[in-house]
């Protein structure tokens, strides 16, 4: 076995280096600390060499770009053919204000849109609900009905611009509104593309903007899969998201494992509903975080592709390459941004974005440096976009495919990520699946524990945040201009709702809302009835309340 001989000679070489070079070096200059850890508190070795990748089979585990298991990327030419989509997440205030921001970003070279909705929208409440007080337009754009959605996309052709919508519990209603706006623009549903986040599992796990009980919510997700596969075939009805799981405190491995296991759960539910694997799975997309620890992140993305491809083949018997390929969006880590010395965030974002690119992301959002203070100003949003353009067009990193492939360190980490994720899969499978695991509070507890351990490491000084627990500037003067959203937004939105209500046909609204309820009660696909209700300008709050009447609401167990 020539391989074995090689390995043992490598081991001999390593021992020799250890004795002849390393030991005297350590005697002269001890290392800075006894343990070196990633931001996920994973131990990192001093050196990675051929022995660390001895178990990796170049052909089976790495292969070539565009070939199974896609460790090195899903496209044969990487970014040499087409750069990633620069898709900045934006939304604040009124639909008119956000529409202006969209047009500004498109004018400055952004290549796709991504809508941030406000908290009332995320929770399925209209702007005039008493629960919406103080929250309208604050964390995203306020949308309560088709009228707002029309204003949001005025002058933006939905047949040619792809739009990603971050909306989950009421996602089916937003998909319906989006499709009706597109239809009114004269767009062909068969041609429009875009993405709906629609990942309800990670809401119960991490982001916690839920409405209905888990199983009913999963049914709504499956409804969108089925509807899109039939009627909107180029649209991605889900973006399975690790982003929020990571922001809630998960390690890189937990983000990877829980997200992919969520993906498996959606595949299971789709198949159980009788959907065809190769018709709906190719339109499942993913969304990951890009945190500070550069190599750990790159390994995470590479492992994600390999695990997904292998799981689709081995667990579901997939053969169609579109089903095997994992496509993902990346956003830099909001949680890593600091209020202190906020301009430092520009540097953090650039490095995180670079990790996403080295990991082969399909689209990227770079955070604005002022996001630990408020929603971004025009200027801050522009610097964030320019950061991507600099990476793409000045650094040269997009000139070759998977530039870190073959690095002992990156390959060893990629392999470790895969093994760790498979262990989590086994634990979750043994609980009966992800829905059951979430009901037991398993991923929630794992994340909570990691968040606490990280905070302790930070307070011990084992982890450093520049400007926060090291290189602190006392009496720092805050000179960053911030975007202020006041209560006038809510008043404006309440007026808009009243105008829309005054114009609509009350009888048609009642009839279509009753049909939504009936579809939910019967277990029929709710999408057609939801689209009809949206067309009649039934509001978001009205539709969600009809579904609440049928499904009930989720109560979080104490965890």
């Amino acid at each position, binding site marked *: 076995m020539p391989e074995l001989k090689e390995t043992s000679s490598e081991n001999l070489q390593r021992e020799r280096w250890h004795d002849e070079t390393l030991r005297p070096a350590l005697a002269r200059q001890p290392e800075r600390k006894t343990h070196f850890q990633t931001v996920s508190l994973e131990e990192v070795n001093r050196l990675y060499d051929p022995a660390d990748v001895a178990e990796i089979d170049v052909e089976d585990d790495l292969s070539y770009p565009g070939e199974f298991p896609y460790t090195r990327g899903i496209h044969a030419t990487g970014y040499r053919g087409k750069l990633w989509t620069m898709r900045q997440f934006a939304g604040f205030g009124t639909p008119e204000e956000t529409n202006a921001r969209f047009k500004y970003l498109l004018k400055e070279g952004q290549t796709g849109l991504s809508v941030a909705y406000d*908290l*009332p929208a*995320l*929770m399925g*409440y209209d702007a005039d609900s008493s*629960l*919406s*007080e*103080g*929250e309208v337009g*604050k*964390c995203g754009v306020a949308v309560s009905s088709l009228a707002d959605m029309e204003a949001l996309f005025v002058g933006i052709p939905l047949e040619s611009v792809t739009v990603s919508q971050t909306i989950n519990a009421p996602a089916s209603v937003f998909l319906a509104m989006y499709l009706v706006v597109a239809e009114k623009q004269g767009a062909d549903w068969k041609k429009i593309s875009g993405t709906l986040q629609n990942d309800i599992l990670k*809401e119960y796990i991490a*982001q*916690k*903007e*839920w409405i209905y009980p888990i199983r009913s919510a999963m049914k709504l997700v499956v409804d969108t899969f089925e509807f899109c596969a039939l009627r909107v075939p180029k649209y991605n009805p889900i973006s399975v998201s690790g982003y929020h799981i990571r*922001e*809630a*405190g998960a390690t890189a491995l937990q983000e990877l494992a829980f997200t992919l296991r969520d993906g498996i759960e959606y595949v299971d539910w789709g198949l159980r509903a009788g959907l065809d694997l190769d018709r709906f799975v190719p339109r499942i997309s993913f969304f990951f975080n890009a945190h500070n620890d550069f190599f750990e992140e790159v390994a995470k993305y590479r492992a994600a592709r390999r695990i997904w491809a292998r799981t689709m083949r081995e667990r579901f018997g997939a053969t169609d390459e579109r089903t095997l390929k994992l496509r993902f969006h990346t956003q830099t880590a909001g*949680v890593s941004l*600091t*209020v*202190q010395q906020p301009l430092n965030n520009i540097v953090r974002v650039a490095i995180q974005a670079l990790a996403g690119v080295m990991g082969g992301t399909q689209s990227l959002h770079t955070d604005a440096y002022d996001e*630990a*203070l*408020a*929603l971004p100003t025009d200027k801050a949003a522009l610097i964030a976009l320019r950061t991507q353009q600099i990476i793409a067009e000045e650094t040269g990193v997009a000139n070759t495919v998977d530039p870190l492939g073959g690095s002992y360190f990156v390959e060893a980490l990629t392999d470790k990520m895969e093994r760790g994720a498979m262990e989590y899969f086994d634990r979750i499978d043994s609980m009966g699946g992800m829905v059951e695991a979430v009901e037991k509070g398993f991923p929630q507890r794992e994340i*909570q524990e990691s*968040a*606490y351990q990280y*905070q302790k490491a*930070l*307070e011990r000084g084992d982890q450093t*945040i520049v*400007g*926060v*627990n090291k290189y602190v500037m006392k009496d720092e003067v*805050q000179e960053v201009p*911030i975007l*202020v*959203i006041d*209560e006038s937004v809510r008043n404006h939105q309440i007026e808009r709702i009243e105008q829309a209500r005054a114009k609509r046909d009350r009888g048609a609204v009642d009839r279509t809302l009753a049909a939504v309820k009936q579809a939910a009660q019967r277990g029929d696909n709710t999408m057609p009835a939801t689209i009809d209700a949206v067309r009649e300008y039934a509001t978001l709050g009205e539709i969600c309340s009809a579904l609440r009447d049928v499904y009930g609401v989720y109560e*979080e167990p*104490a965890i």
Partner: protein
Amino acid sequence: MSQSNQRIRVLVAKPGLDGHDRGAKVIARALRDAGREVIYTGLRQTPEMIAAAALQEDVDAVGVSILSGAHNTLCPRIVSLLREQGMADTLVVLGGIVPQEDIPKLKEQGVAEIFLPGTSTQDIAEFIRNNVKPRD
């Protein structure tokens, strides 16, 4: 200090529609580890629910976590509801994403301290220990 013979009781509260509870949960556990008695309200509590919980649990301090920008609406209401029910001495602190210019007004309205991102949990625990009103 009368506090030395009884544990300080803190209500960690999460008002508004936001679901980002990482901070609230980390601080709840850190305060517990620092010897405080902690009650966590859970998500999406109205100011009325928070004030009622504060009364029922007879707490010395209320720690409010808001990241959504709704602090100017929610905090003054929590403070005034506490006062209305005779809990004017209850310490109210806020943690979250709060612009500098909002801080003086929040303090004027009765929020004792505002902790911005990056504050250590030890500093928060210490502030609460040093500022809760001694019980009679």
